[in-house]
């Protein structure tokens, strides 16, 4: 890693450098369609559209790595001929990814670049230049609970905002070359590092809420059958799947064939899916392993907090808060964690006669 300092006004030079080297530069900007305050990742043609001090976007940059509708195969029905579709080879720079979204990509890497390699994801990953940017927590952001408020790899270049200048971390050769060619960057001095530390302290102190994560996977397992708990959380779920669509790590997909008008040739598509949809776990004879919306909500968070944690050592949530905004009925990771941590007996003081009875009763059971 090479560290550099640039003045804030030099950012436009960086943007022009990216424009010269990549087919497309995308970044957070006001949504053209919505018109409202919502920000989206979209193609940048004008530097002034870029909003680097944003809190979040509607969709995460996941859409650039996992196309919502990817064509994975061309086929001919009668001959049985099959042709791979070539991954789209567009070079793209993403300007302004938050640490949570970069951490989300690292989680997706575990899934799509394992024993089996997804060629479309891999191609997008290879042809994308990532510029991360520091942020300040907004209400609802719980990245601190998942350790995704910091990121140390998975980007080419990272910008930490020091007020009048940026602290640059160059992680790759293309990043170093870009900085070299387009920016008048200087080496950091003690005052820069001191400001960086002050900024980090200010960032950490800005989190008003830290979910209690103690023993979460174990608690989830132990309370999995607690019907009251899951009914309280999942009963309102509309099975709309919005939470999965806006989640930077939700990656489940469905595979569908579509025939051309000639009835002979066609394409196989891979489309975004959600485990909250009713038919997600359905098998032959319409047997459904998760027939109720409550069971699907319980499973979705199980996969995030326990399933992937047990399998790959990481929870599939980066605390970005997009699902908080997308959910119409207030089902959020923080709420699920709170419910799991809730202790029915916690308010029973140790010295009261009642609690003594409870303790002895428990001993008898054991």
């Amino acid at each position, binding site marked *: 890693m090479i560290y550099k300092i640039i003045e804030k006004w030099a950012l436009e030079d960086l943007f022009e450098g990216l424009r010269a080297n990549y087919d497309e530069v995308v970044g957070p900007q006001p949504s053209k369609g919505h018109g409202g305050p919502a920000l989206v990742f979209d193609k940048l043609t004008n530097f002034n559209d870029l909003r680097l001090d944003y809190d979040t976007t509607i969709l995460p940059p996941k859409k650039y790595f996992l196309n919502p509708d990817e064509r*994975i*195969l061309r*086929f*001919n*029905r009668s*001959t*049985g*001929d*099959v042709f*791979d579709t070539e991954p789209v080879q567009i070079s793209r720079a993403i300007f302004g990814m938050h640490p949570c979204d970069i951490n989300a990509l690292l989680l997706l890497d575990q*899934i*799509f670049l*394992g*024993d*089996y*390699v*997804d*060629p479309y994801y891999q191609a997008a990953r290879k042809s994308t230049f990532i510029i991360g940017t520091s942020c300040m927590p907004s209400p609802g952001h719980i990245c601190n609970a998942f350790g995704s408020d910091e990121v140390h790899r998975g980007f080419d270049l990272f910008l930490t905002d020091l007020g009048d200048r940026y602290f640059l971390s160059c992680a790759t050769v293309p990043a170093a070359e870009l900085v070299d060619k387009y920016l008048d960057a200087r080496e950091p001095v003690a005052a820069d590092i001191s400001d960086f530390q002050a900024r980090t302290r200010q960032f950490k102190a800005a989190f008003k809420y830290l979910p209690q994560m103690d023993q979460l996977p174990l608690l989830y*397992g132990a309370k*999995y059958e607690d019907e009251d708990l899951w009914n309280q959380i999942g009963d309102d779920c509309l099975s709309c799947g919005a939470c999965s669509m806006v989640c930077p790590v939700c*990656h*489940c*997909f*469905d*595979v*569908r*064939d579509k*025939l051309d008008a000639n*009835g002979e040739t*066609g394409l*196989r598509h*891979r489309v975004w*899916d959600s*485990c909250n949809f009713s038919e*997600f*776990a*359905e*098998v*032959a*004879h319409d047997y459904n*392993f*998760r027939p109720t919306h409550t069971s699907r909500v319980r*499973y979705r968070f*199980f*996969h995030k907090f*326990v*399933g*992937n*944690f*047990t*399998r790959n050592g990481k929870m599939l949530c980066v605390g970005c808060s997009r699902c908080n905004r997308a959910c119409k009925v207030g089902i959020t990771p923080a709420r699920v964690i709170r419910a799991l941590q809730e202790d029915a007996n916690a308010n029973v003081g140790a010295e009261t006669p009642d609690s003594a009875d409870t303790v002895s009763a428990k001993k008898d059971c054991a």
Partner: protein
Amino acid sequence: MTAAHTAKAYRKLGANPYRPWPARITSITQLTATEKLFELRLIDEHVREEFSFTAGQFVELSIFGIGEAPISISSAPSKQGFIELCIRQTGTVTNAIHRMRCGDVVGIRGPFGRGFPFEEMENHDVLLVAGGLGIAPLKSLINHVHDERHAFGKVTILLGARNPAELLFRQEFDMWKHRQDFDLMMTVDQPDDSWDGEVGLVTRLFDRVDIDPDNTYGAICGPPVMYPFVVEEMRKKHLDVDRIYVSVERRMKCGIGMCGHCAVGHQYTCIEGPVFSYWEAINLREAI
């Protein structure tokens, strides 16, 4: 054979793991009113050479224009060059292949998942139990044991079906009844005039089962409701739960651990399954 093995074969063939290999239907046998046995041959010679599997693994069957469905392989690994799929007519893909004829071309991806631990089972006695269509995945193991008979000790096979007409591979198994090297028992719930064998659930047959629990592996395939009852019978015979293997049914869409549809507990049926030890299965949420 594991995910790493199949992934390596795909890399060697220079193919992306979503690509099905064209396979020709070489034989179709009507087994019951709703089930047919399809014999398939992968058309490409290189693909055929790389395609090796263990009993209990599955393939993704493609009917182009309709879609894909996970189907377990019924033939033995020792039957080279061909694979057999026992398919019930139930969904869009399976209905489509039921309308196809010999010579037609389908797509095959795989093999996927983890099969039965045959290396661990070898040199031991085996107790194999199937109910209904559960025979489809178990048939591969039965065929394997049959082909490598010398490598196994005592072999006990228990088969159950709703009625004689739904008893899969009945003709074949009727012949096996006369063999000395297999202890084969069949039962049906609803007998008809053609049936002179046992009547009742497959668990009934356990009265006549005699096993050495320290030297036996069990394997069970059938509808989910069957597992706890059969396992209970095996437990009564003092078989350890980590020596009993079950095959789990899920909606595997990709077969390569990405699409999320087949997750059970913290594992993926298409990677760590579909065969799990019973101990693993009861520790996976909603598996059984």
